[in-house]
Every structure is written in C-alpha cells, then in structure tokens.
C-alpha cells in the first residue's frame, strides 16, 4: 500500500448531471419516486449552497438529514462509536468548508457525503492496522443488514426510514452471493483480493458478482436516488 488514500477515487469525480440519471428510470414504475428523489436532491443541494454562504441553519438541517446514515456507515466500517463520531464530525466540517465548491452537476450531495465518509473511515481502519483483526471480526451477521433501532420522530427521520427500508429490500433482492460481495466491498474496507480470500472465491468471480450486484441495485434504486 503506497498511501492510505491512494486507492480511492477522488471524493467526487466529474460526472453528468442529475438529468442523466433520471432519464434512466423506468417511467411507469418510478415516476412518483423519481420526482420525490429529485426534490430531495434539489433540497440537499440548496442546503449546501446556503452553507456556502455560512448559513448555520442550513448546516443544522443537512446534519439532521445525513448524520444517521453517515454515522451508521462509519460505525459499520470502524466498529467503534467514538471513532465513527470523529469521522462524522470531520465529514460535516469538510462539507461546511467545501460547500462553495459543490456543483449539482457533479452528483448528489448525499453521494458526496457518503463518499467522504467511506474514504475517511477506511483510511482510519488502515491507519489502525487492524486488517487481520477485521478479517476475524467481519462475521456473517455483520454482512447482513442491521436490525433497525428506534429512529427520530421528525419528518426527515420518517423519510429516512422509508428510504432505508426500500434500499434494504433492494439489497435483499440480490442473489446471496452478490449481496455478500457488495456488502463486503462497501462496508469492510478490504481490497479486492482480501474480499476474494474472505469469500474463498476466485478474484474474477468476486469482481463479476460485484459488477452484477451494483448494476442490479442501480436498476432497482434508480427511481430512489
């Protein structure tokens, strides 16, 4: 490993605008969901723009919308509540500092925040040199979806619960081998080879499962983004 972060893509690469994503959705099935998703993405983007103008209230709103999934992701990767909170704190401060650089055409605010969180959490994992320990800790239970805990009563919380349920359903609809490969790739911080070793499968097979799993998730969740 050359550096802790070199194996990750940039926090946000240049990608086409939202319109391209929406164009991929199945009109009959996802029209209402797509409209709601686009509205959410638009609102998140507006919050970021306001944060760029040092709007404290916008920051608080974005925190309420993103903090749970970002914290849960960091916790799932790090298995440590304090470190997960550190990561979330870093990510929100980065969003506050970099808000002026955000462009809608480069992707959703949520995807940006998740990318920042994953990169930082995985960096932290590797910094702790706990790879071998993690291999042991990544149990069958970790690979599956976590049981829901009591969520907030706010409207944001309810929407979040609804979104999470839909995504869990989409993940659960994947064949077990694809589901396992995708979740290990997203939450474990392991390399391709380590995932193949963990699954006791050839590397090519693991890559193919990840590819098929992500494409299927894209097709399923297209209207929810």
């Amino acid at each position, binding site marked *: 490993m050359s550096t802790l972060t070199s194996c990750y893509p940039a926090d946000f690469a240049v990608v086409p605008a939202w319109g391209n994503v929406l164009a991929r959705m199945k009109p009959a099935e996802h029209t209402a969901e797509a409209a709601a998703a686009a509205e959410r993405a638009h609102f998140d983007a507006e919050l970021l723009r306001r944060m760029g103008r040092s709007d404290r209230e916008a920051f608080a709103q974005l925190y309420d919308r993103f903090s749970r999934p970002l914290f849960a992701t960091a916790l799932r990767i790090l298995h440590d509540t304090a470190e997960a909170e550190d990561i979330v704190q870093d990510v929100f401060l980065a969003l*506050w500092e970099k808000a002026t650089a955000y462009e809608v055409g480069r992707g959703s605010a949520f995807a940006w925040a998740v990318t920042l969180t994953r990169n930082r959490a995985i960096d932290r994992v590797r910094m702790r040199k706990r790879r071998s320990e993690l291999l042991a800790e990544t149990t069958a239970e970790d690979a599956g979806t976590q049981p829901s805990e009591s969520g907030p009563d706010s409207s944001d919380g309810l929407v979040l619960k609804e979104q999470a349920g839909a995504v869990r359903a989409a993940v659960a609809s994947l064949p077990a081998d694809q589901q396992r490969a995708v979740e290990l790739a997203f939450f474990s911080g392991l390399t391709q080879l380590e995932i193949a070793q963990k699954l006791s499968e050839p590397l090519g097979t693991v890559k193919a499962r990840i590819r098929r799993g*992500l494409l299927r998730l894209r097709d399923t969740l297209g209207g929810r983004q």
Partner: protein
Amino acid sequence: MIDEFQEELASLYVLGLLEGEDLADFEQSLARDPALARLVHELRESTAQLALTASDAAPSPELRARLLGQVDTATRWRAQNVIPFRTPVWIPWAAAACLATTCAWLGQLYLGSRFETATLRDQQALAEFQLQSARNQIEAERLIAGHQLSSMTEQLASLDRQLKSEGDLANFKIATLASLAGNSPQALAVAVWNPAKQEGVLTVEKLPALAADKDYQLWLVDPQYAIPVDGGVFRVNPSTGDARVTFKANRPINSVAKFAVSLERKGGVPKAEGPMVLLSQ
C-alpha cells in the same frame, strides 16, 4: 458502448477498490468517455444508498451541538478576518498613468536603441576603413623593407668583397729595391705583387736614362724556379728617371722572395745577362 470489463472497472472504482495503474488508466478513460462517466455517476449514486442499510444507529446529541459550535466559531472567525475591499477611485487613473509612463519609456528606449545602432554602424565603418589603411601601410612598409633588404644584401656583398680584397692585401708582397750600380746611387724603386691576380706594380725614381738599344728588365725570384722569372721590360722618363708600370710574370709565381731590375738589350732577354741595377732587400 460500454462492455462488461468497463462495467466491472466502474463498479470497483465507485467502491474504491481500484489501485495503482488500474486506477490511473480508468480515470483517464473516464475523462475521455462521457458514457462511462455517466455509468460511474449512476453506480455511485445507487451505491451511496447502501449507507442507509448500515443501521439506524444515531450519533450522540453532543456531536450535533459540538459541530454547530465549531461552525459558529468558524463563521465568527471568517467575519473578523474578512477585510472589505473597495476599489479606490484613483486606481484606474493611476493605472492609466503607469501605462502612459511605460509607453513613453519604451518609446524613448526604442529611439535610443535606434540611435545607438546607427552610431555603432558608423563606428564599424570607420573601423573597417582604419583596418584597410593599416593593411595598405603594412604592404608599403613590406615593400620598403624588401628594397632595404636588397640594398643591405648588396652592401653586405660589397663589404664581403672589400673584406676579401683586404684579405688579399694582407697577402701582397711589397718590397723596396735599392741601387747596386755606382752610377745611380739615388735610384729607388718599390714593387708590389698581388699573388691572387698574379700581377704587380713597380714604381721607380731617379734611374739613369737608357740608351736607345737598352731596356730595364724586372725579375721575380721564386724559390721553386732555378733562375729568376721574367717580369717584363720598361723604360724610364729620360729627364727624371721615374716610371710606374704594371707587370706580370711569364710563369706562375707561388711566392716572391726578391725583386730585381737589370739593364738588358732592347726587348729583354729570357735569362738575365746584363748588370743588376736594383735589388730588393
């Protein structure tokens, strides 16, 4: 058209699983291929949704308060460190003045450089003329020196000849001849012999006048010959008894031991017969 391999790379890319050259190559492809960029965008958006499946765990309420406090601090710091800047009215005028000054300076520089170039060109022409003059002068001096050398060579040859001549003079045989006859006690002669030229000069004074059937005859005594060698006959001025004659021996002479003058019959004789009048010492 995106093939399965590119789809696979795009999937690994959004999950942060590409490394090294694979990562660099893919990002280059991504920058060139809009369709591939669109696929990556779609995969990233859908993959980000996986964050919603992690758990319903929430960070502590203190984190929210702490973050908002940090944001407040950062906002205050920004506000305190932002220095409002208003463009002073005089700046455009100052800029125009600077531009005008710069243009004037550049114009002056241009004119100055042109004058300097012309001066340098004149100096170059003058230097070329001086160079040509110097060349001509050197050529003239070379010719003069050639003449002088030739003249000196001639002088040297002349001196050489003179030295040679003086060298020959050293070898000259000079002798005075005194009278042996009682009738001419005052008679005197000087003989000079140049062995290189095999000739000589005889000067006599106060010899008695000759009878019509008589001649004086000069003899050169060379030890290599048994008898004196004939040097020729001569006559003297009857009133003064003087004479100056150039003579030659009738045989080759190596060295002259003595000169002698005898009185002989008219026209001379091969071997001295008459009385000896003069003899060198």
